[in-house]
């Protein structure tokens, strides 16, 4: 996490590790692709659509008649990418192109490795450059090349000839997340070992962590309120299953805690007690990590632990009167 005067941001990658079912039409196309063959599908009007779709784009009829098409064809339109993005299939300049394969009536999207923009033109002929290993994915086509280019690479036979019914389609997107103003102020206080919430100017409720608004009143919150380390258990759960990536060994207690002077709970760990003794209304206190380990994070508090104070009646939780309220 980096920090400037006001802005806290952190890079992160969001991963969607999907496996998709293909259905019979896409599955057949990908199965053929793995065998280094191109197939289109016959539309209601007799035209051959490439790549195949399940339903006719005009009549909406279900389509089923596959048609072999060539692995070479004509560039119908294209664009030139001077500076490929990290996710792109080529790290050198390349063309995206809509390519109409011989025997097909619609063009399909793929990329062309032409070396130079000057080598590209609408109407030029190109052919598939098959990947050395094929897996039943669009990347089995390692781009197209101008038809005159000789392809010498060795092609391994497909590892399987089973019908493809699913495909791995992992997606990773990278972001630089920026905390909102209220969150940034809150995290900056956390780094100094202080719990600072915000008070609604309308209903006077205090929120921690603050979001910059009162969700109940729909008004901005600006007044800051420094809160203490004591809190009350509003509800809790005992976690028995290990959670991937979580270093804490189950069973452990996660509780909704309302800090004294605040009106909304947040989640944190509860420890230094028998799990079966945890109860709603229990009084607890934050145990901070050593100051040297403080960052812009809620984890500066290692956990909350019970203190020797009488339980708070359920109807009083979150309503403890704080000075100044």
């Amino acid at each position, binding site marked *: 996490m980096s920090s400037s005067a006001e802005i806290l941001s952190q890079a992160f990658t969001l991963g969607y590790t999907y496996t998709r079912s293909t259905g019979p039409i896409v599955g057949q196309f990908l199965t053929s692709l793995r065998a280094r063959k191109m197939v289109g599908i016959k539309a209601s009007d007799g035209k051959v659509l490439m790549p195949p779709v399940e339903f006719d784009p005009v009549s909406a009829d279900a389509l089923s008649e596959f048609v072999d098409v060539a692995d070479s064809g004509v560039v119908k339109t294209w664009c030139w990418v001077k500076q490929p993005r990290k996710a792109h299939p080529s790290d050198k300049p390349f063309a*995206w192109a809509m390519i109409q394969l011989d025997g097909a009536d619609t063009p399909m999207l793929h990329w062309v490795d032409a070396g130079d923009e000057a080598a590209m033109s609408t109407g030029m002929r190109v052919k598939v450059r098959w990947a050395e290993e094929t897996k039943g994915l669009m990347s089995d086509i390692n781009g197209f090349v101008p038809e005159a280019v000789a392809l010498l690479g060795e092609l391994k036979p497909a590892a399987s000839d089973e019908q493809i019914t699913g495909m791995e389609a992992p997606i990773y997107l990278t972001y630089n997340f920026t905390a909102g103003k209220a969150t940034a102020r809150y995290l900056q206080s956390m780094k100094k070992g202080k719990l600072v919430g915000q008070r609604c100017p309308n209903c006077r409720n205090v929120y921690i962590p603050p979001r910059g608004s009162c969700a109940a009143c729909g008004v901005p919150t600006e007044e800051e309120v420094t809160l203490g380390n004591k809190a009350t258990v509003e509800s809790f759960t005992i976690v028995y299953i290990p959670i991937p990536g979580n270093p804490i060994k189950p069973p452990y207690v996660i509780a909704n805690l309302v800090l004294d002077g605040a009106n909304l709970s947040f989640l944190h760990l509860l420890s230094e007690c028998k799990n079966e003794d945890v109860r709603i209304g229990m009084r607890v206190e934050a145990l901070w990590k050593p100051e040297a380990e403080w960052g812009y994070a809620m984890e500066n508090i290692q956990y909350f632990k019970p203190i020797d104070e009488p339980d708070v009646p359920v109807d009083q939780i979150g309503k403890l009167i704080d000075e100044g309220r």
Partner: protein
Amino acid sequence: MRDVAIVAFAQSNCQRDAGAQNEVELIMPVLSEVFKQTGIKSAQDVDFTCSGSCDYQQGAAFAFVAGVDALGAVPPIKESHVEMDAAWALYEAWLKIQMGHAESALLYGFGKSSPGELPIVLSQQLDPYYLAPLWVDTIAFAAMQARTMLDSGEITEADMAEVVARSRNNALANPHAQLKGDQTAADLLKEATYVSPLRLHDCCPISDGACAMIICTIEKAEEWGKPYAIIKGIDHRIETHHIGSRDLSRSVSTEIAGEAVGVKNGKVDVAELYAPFSHQEIILKKALGLGDDTVINPSGGVLAGNVMMASGLSRIGEVAMRIIRGEATRGVAHATSGPCLQQNLVTVLEAK
């Protein structure tokens, strides 16, 4: 169809990076502004609330739910969301009013695209088997569409530069615009290509921001006693996701939607067209049958600032405000979604 009034509209500035503003902090100022224009206090004072946004833009799951914190939804309100441009949130609310389920509605759209790599994020809205795995981005598709038109001789690069020059010039008078200037088409043509045949200025910028609108029945608008513009018709159509089957030099869905709302049934004083790429304004102008007597994109359009998921509603708001200010009596607003103008919404607005 029942006439529906637009009584308030507000938009934030288009910024390349809104920095330390979360969704709530982006939305609240425009909400306060439309409440003030309407003379109401909060979302509690309308019958229905609907928003448009896409969590993939900022990579924050359920950001659209977090956005509800800006509304003051206690006691609970009737609320909905579209994972689309907020122009489609307007469509949902318009239907609610047609059905007699609401007399008034608050709409808002917001987008924070700066945290991610927007063209790559948008590549994942494409076909998940054939296109998304190649990471082909929206700029590439628009560039191939432009080349189709250049190859056929339907447009020239100078025509495209004219669109950009007019956008930048018009944006000089728009305080919310991100890109503005007095460059001529000849100046712009001297610049190098970006994703050939597109130059960087042919592409809309990436912007963060938000907008909000309040609509209601004519009776309610009269009760509130505020000036308003009237939605005379609204329609949206979509084309196939099989991009090879589309004629990219036309926008068939815009043609059909424009016909359905009767764009040609009167003089169009002003039109705001959601054309994220310069050549697409030419396609849309033709699809809607707009002549040279229509002022197109007086705000500068989205080439001057494009808040994904809010820009479509802003096109409608721009036209409505011009009508309310008496600068026009009849106008057309257009919103789009998907690659190469795949889905299009057309609205006809008139003065009281």
